[in-house]
């Protein structure tokens, strides 16, 4: 870093470093005290919060009968047995790309929704928003609303302060523990792990993750709050790339509100009551225009509508609006004096949101393409797979009569449950090759028969022998084919048969 710019007056160097004219690189955290608000947006937010939290806490407890010896939890990531259960679906670790596909779908869906409706993910459904909302609600019940909390924090640390803070943090911790506990249940049998945690018999890993998610919930929703959105989250940084002038965003209609001031004929509709600022969970002023910190929750819309209703003015001074309409209204009302005419003129030029545009078409196209690929992959998913591993040490064995033998390991993976399949193994390759499978029974035609295991893998050792005089090349392609009782081909897997260099 360049220290002192040349030409600075001497004598200043020994003075105090930072003066008010020089910008600091760091902003000191301003604690935000959001005020309670009611209205349609708030009601939607409560409803979304209730649905999402219930889903999160209740889903691990849903039971789902899958039969004997299989977990009966509807949603379970079974690390110990390497299975993922989701209602009707059960996937193996090698099929984790279905999960990847879901994440890709989620990301593109997020892009599409953002291009249409702005940051409703941030404002309504993001876990950070949902848990912060819940924590704020608890805080409000215990310490009171905005003014009471500010008074408490700036007042003396007396017995009441200690009591309220203690109760609040205890309540937060309880919620955080419930959250951390619920997370564990997605990875363990919920009733069992609950009893284990309470009786101290759970594993160190369970307690570790329990503590980790309790701590993150408590810190992120209790202390960090809007700083997560402003400083930690990458999404606000690049969501601007998804938004355009046709996206719905929370907007202050400055053409209608300015100049702000007293509710008289000389001023616009904004009476500068700062209700929008006081309810904002990130502590910003929406009247400054679009800004990174705005999570698009729309609580300022409710707060402003409330004030407008009390003043007998039309609602919607702050509204979910496209920037295109905002610009049109600004243009139509330029130079007009405040009053009903300006309002009417501004509102008249607004057009319905343009939903179909290149950006949304691209998102919709990519979304349906990924959806189709995933659907296809799921429908064509193999429930029975065969893998053939050729022995590498030794590559081949010379027999006493000069014949050549290769060893193979056959692994038959059966992702289904129910009937045990008996499959005959047939070898396709040069005439004369003989196949034996160790410990396998034989069918009527003398072919070895291998069997499947429910939701598991059976392993077989196969020996293929080329009698002396067959004179195969160094490497010969062969195919192991599995046949059902009717002789139909079920599966086939290629491998090779190696011999000495000739």
């Amino acid at each position, binding site marked *: 870093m360049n220290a002192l710019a040349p030409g600075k007056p001497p004598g200043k160097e020994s003075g105090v470093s930072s003066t008010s004219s020089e910008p600091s690189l760091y902003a000191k955290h301003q604690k935000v005290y959001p005020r309670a608000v009611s209205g349609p947006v708030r009601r939607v937010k409560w409803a979304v919060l209730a649905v999402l939290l219930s889903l999160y806490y209740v889903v691990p407890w849903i039971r789902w009968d899958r039969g004997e010896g299989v977990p009966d939890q509807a949603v379970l990531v079974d690390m110990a047995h390497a299975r993922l259960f989701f209602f009707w679906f059960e996937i193996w670790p090698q099929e984790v790309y279905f999960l990847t596909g879901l994440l890709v779908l989620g990301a593109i869906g997020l892009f599409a929704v953002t291009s249409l409706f702005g940051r409703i993910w941030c404002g309504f459904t993001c876990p950070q928003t949902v848990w912060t909302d819940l924590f704020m609600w608890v805080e409000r019940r215990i310490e009171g609303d905005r003014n009471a909390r500010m008074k408490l924090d700036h007042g003396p640390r007396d017995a009441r302060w200690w009591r309220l803070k203690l109760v609040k943090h205890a309540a937060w911790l309880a919620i955080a523990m419930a959250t951390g506990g619920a997370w564990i249940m997605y990875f363990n049998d919920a009733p069992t792990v609950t009893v284990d945690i309470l009786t101290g018999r759970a594993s160190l890993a369970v307690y570790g993750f329990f503590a980790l998610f309790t701590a993150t919930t408590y810190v992120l929703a209790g202390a960090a709050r809007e700083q997560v959105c402003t400083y930690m989250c990458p999404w606000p940084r690049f969501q601007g790339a998804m938004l355009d002038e046709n996206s719905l965003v929370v907007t202050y209609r400055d053409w209608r509100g300015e100049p702000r001031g007293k509710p008289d004929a000389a001023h616009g509709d904004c009476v500068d009551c700062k209700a929008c600022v006081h309810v904002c969970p990130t502590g910003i002023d929406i009247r400054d225009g679009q800004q990174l910190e705005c999570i698009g929750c729309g609580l300022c819309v409710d707060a402003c509508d409330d004030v407008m209703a009390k003043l007998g003015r039309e609602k919607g001074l702050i509204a979910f609006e496209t920037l295109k309409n905002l610009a049109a209204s600004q243009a139509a009302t330029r130079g007009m004096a405040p009053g009903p005419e300006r309002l009417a003129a501004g509102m008249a030029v607004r057009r319905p949101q343009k939903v179909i545009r290149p950006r949304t078409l691209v998102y919709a196209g990519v979304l349906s393409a990924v959806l189709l690929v995933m659907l296809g992959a799921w429908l064509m998913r193999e429930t029975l797979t065969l893998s053939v591993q050729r022995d590498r040490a030794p590559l081949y064995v*010379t027999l006493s009569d000069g014949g050549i033998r290769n060893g193979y390991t056959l692994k038959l993976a059966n992702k289904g449950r129910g009937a045990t399949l008996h499959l005959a193994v047939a070898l396709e390759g040069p005439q004369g090759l003989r196949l034996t499978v160790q410990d396998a029974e034989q069918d009527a035609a003398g072919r070895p028969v291998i069997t499947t295991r429910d939701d598991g893998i059976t392993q077989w050792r196969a020996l293929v022998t080329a009698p002396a005089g067959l004179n195969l090349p160094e490497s010969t392609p062969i195919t192991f084919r599995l046949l059902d009782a009717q002789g139909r081909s079920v599966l086939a897997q290629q491998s090779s048969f190696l011999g000495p260099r000739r």
Partner: protein
Amino acid sequence: MPTKIEKDSLSGQNTTGHEWDGLKELNTPLPKWWLYTFYATVLFSLVWVVLYPALPITGATGLTGWTARGALPAQLEQSRARMEPMLARIRAATPEQIAADPELRAFAMAGGRVAFANNCAGCHGAGGQGAAGGFPSLADDDWIYGGSFEAIHHTISHGVRAGESDEERGIAMPAYLATQMLTLAQINDVAEHVLSLTDRATDRAAAQRGAELFAENCASCHGERGEGNRDMGAPRLNDRIWLYGGDKASIVRSISYSRAGVMPSWRGRLDPATINMLTVYVHALGGGE
């Protein structure tokens, strides 16, 4: 070479006094959290050095007395105790019975694979493919002492020429040239005859002469037509598998100076359960009879 330490008005920090083409280096202190974390790790390491073996001195222990080596027996005992129920069954069963029981067989194959890699693979190869110079392949169909469960178990237990009182695995072939039982010319004739057993003789007359010498000296162990004798560990001579090489020079050398490969006896080194597991594993390598 610090020259002049100045105070930067923008950040309030001193410079280091280093300057390059007008660029001055700022002496910004480490962030507090970083520094305290660093102090904490220093403190941790001090406590560690006192409590745990940390000094590069043989036999150094900390105050706790804990060592990785000292902790090992307990861990071994623990894993042994976990496997004991299965091991007890393996110990009680014969290799045939183990191979016939899918559960025992799976356990024995897994345990046998590990024991083989630890004890046998050094000579016989990772897949039992053997090695040149007298380490027989265990994956082919040619057995010197037999490939049945019983024979494999016996060979592992008693070894080959391992100095056991058990004479069955102790017989060695005479060195015909070294002991002057045969002349070099006679040995050449015998070698030609041995080659003729697999139709590879180059000198028919020599092979004819060697036939008589073979019948006198070799047939008692290796058989009239070189079919071998497993009771004595005399290898087959009429097949395509040669432990010490099947070319004439190798055969001449074998007759002249004898061959007597040695395999240690394992019954004193491995417990009966491990030998049972090894037997099942070796039997399944491909040559089991």
